[in-house]
């Protein structure tokens, strides 16, 4: 995590480009969405999207939102897809009610074939009735659950 200075820092510069390109290509999240924000890099390839202006402060715990991990490939976070889900234009899996409950529980599910037609294997936004549930990994017709354990919930009202 950057701790000094007042301008955004993602190093190496190529990582920033890689994240922006991925989000645009995979999810249609254009760069202009991020104009008012900065990308910040922490340990283990974690990338945060946060305010552009960050004062010089000691004991910074976190800047903004964890949006991706970059360890070779880019892995988007559920936080990002929940926060910007309404702007995502492609690679969306619309879950049924039962599938949404299964997803929120933290379990993998098999989407209907019509829900994944035209979607290539890779990370997807899982959505239910317009609500962005989070990130999944589409692989061989299954959506692998990418929901962090702390976010899992047994839904009673959906």
């Amino acid at each position: 995590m950057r701790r000094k200075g007042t301008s955004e820092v993602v190093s190496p510069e190529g990582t920033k480009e890689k994240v922006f390109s991925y989000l645009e290509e995979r999810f249609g999240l254009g760069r202009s969405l991020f104009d008012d924000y900065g990308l910040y890099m922490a340990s283990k390839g974690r990338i945060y999207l946060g305010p552009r202006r960050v004062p010089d402060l000691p004991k910074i715990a976190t800047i903004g939102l964890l949006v991706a991990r970059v360890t070779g490939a880019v892995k988007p976070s559920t936080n990002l897809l929940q926060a910007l889900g309404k702007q995502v234009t492609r690679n969306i899996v619309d879950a049924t009610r039962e599938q949404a409950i299964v997803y929120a529980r933290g379990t993998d599910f098999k989407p209907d074939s019509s829900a994944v037609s035209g979607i290539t294997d890779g990370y997807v936004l899982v959505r239910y009735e317009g609500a962005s549930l989070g990130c999944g990994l589409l692989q061989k017709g299954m959506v692998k659950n990418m929901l962090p354990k702390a976010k899992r919930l047994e839904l009673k009202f959906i």
Partner: protein
Amino acid sequence: MKIPDRFIERYGSLVDDKGAFLSCLGIMPPKSFRVNTLKSSAEEVARRFEGYGIGLKRVPWYGDAFICDNPEAGFSLEHFTGAIYMQELVSMLPPLLVRSELEKSRFVLDGCAAPGSKTTQIAAMMNNRGTLIANDVSYSRIRALKFNLEKAGVLNAVITNRDLNAFQNLRFETILLDAPCSSEGTIRKNYDVFDSWSESGIRQYSNVQKQLIVKAFDMLMPEGTLTYSTCTFAPEENEGVLQHLIDSRPEARLEKAAFEGLRTSETVASWNGVEFNEQIRNAARIWPHHNDTGGFFLAKVKK
């Protein structure tokens, strides 16, 4: 629930209706939540909950807040996605008091932020723009703060883990100081408050609060706005702290703290032989039995 005699002695004479006040303390407050406008709208949430068959009552003084008749609203899709935030009603007041300032501010400090209920509300009022410094001195509470900000989709926050007194001389347009306090106003939810309740504890909190409020005031830009709030009844932690600020920083000006549709009460004029400054009357007390909420105190201070 056994209410300490000394507690009754202290506050029995300050409230308008001692019996209603004391009996209210034994009843849980209604469940409430706030719509996270970064992700949804009050209309959309109301429509969804109607579909669930859960009765909602819109809070008269805050269009984004609802009282909910089902204690399991936390198991809803909207809670899962961060479209709503379960939050006690009075806890929503400090950001609401400075809503117009927050909508314009680009550099804001939440001095005692964890677990983040007010911080997420501030971020929504700032529409995720500018920079919001969310600080808390307690390392163990930072995790909950981080989790809640992420769930709410907050992008403009920087979380810091410091003693506010050790902050360098930054200048903010708006500062919220929801100070650590003896938490008497949360008794309805947590009877344990009485287990550790003591007047010496109140005095200790008061000393901490006096330091914090002066530090927070010093970090305001000229024309900046500070809200000071506690969830306690103790005048030592409320009017007494504002008096200390006025004594230490005579340029501090208090503006009226009021909300259309919410019953607020007059502040205490004197306590333990100390007459409080006239300006302090602009602050507000919220007694639990008046609006069926927790107890609260808040003030709006301008530089």
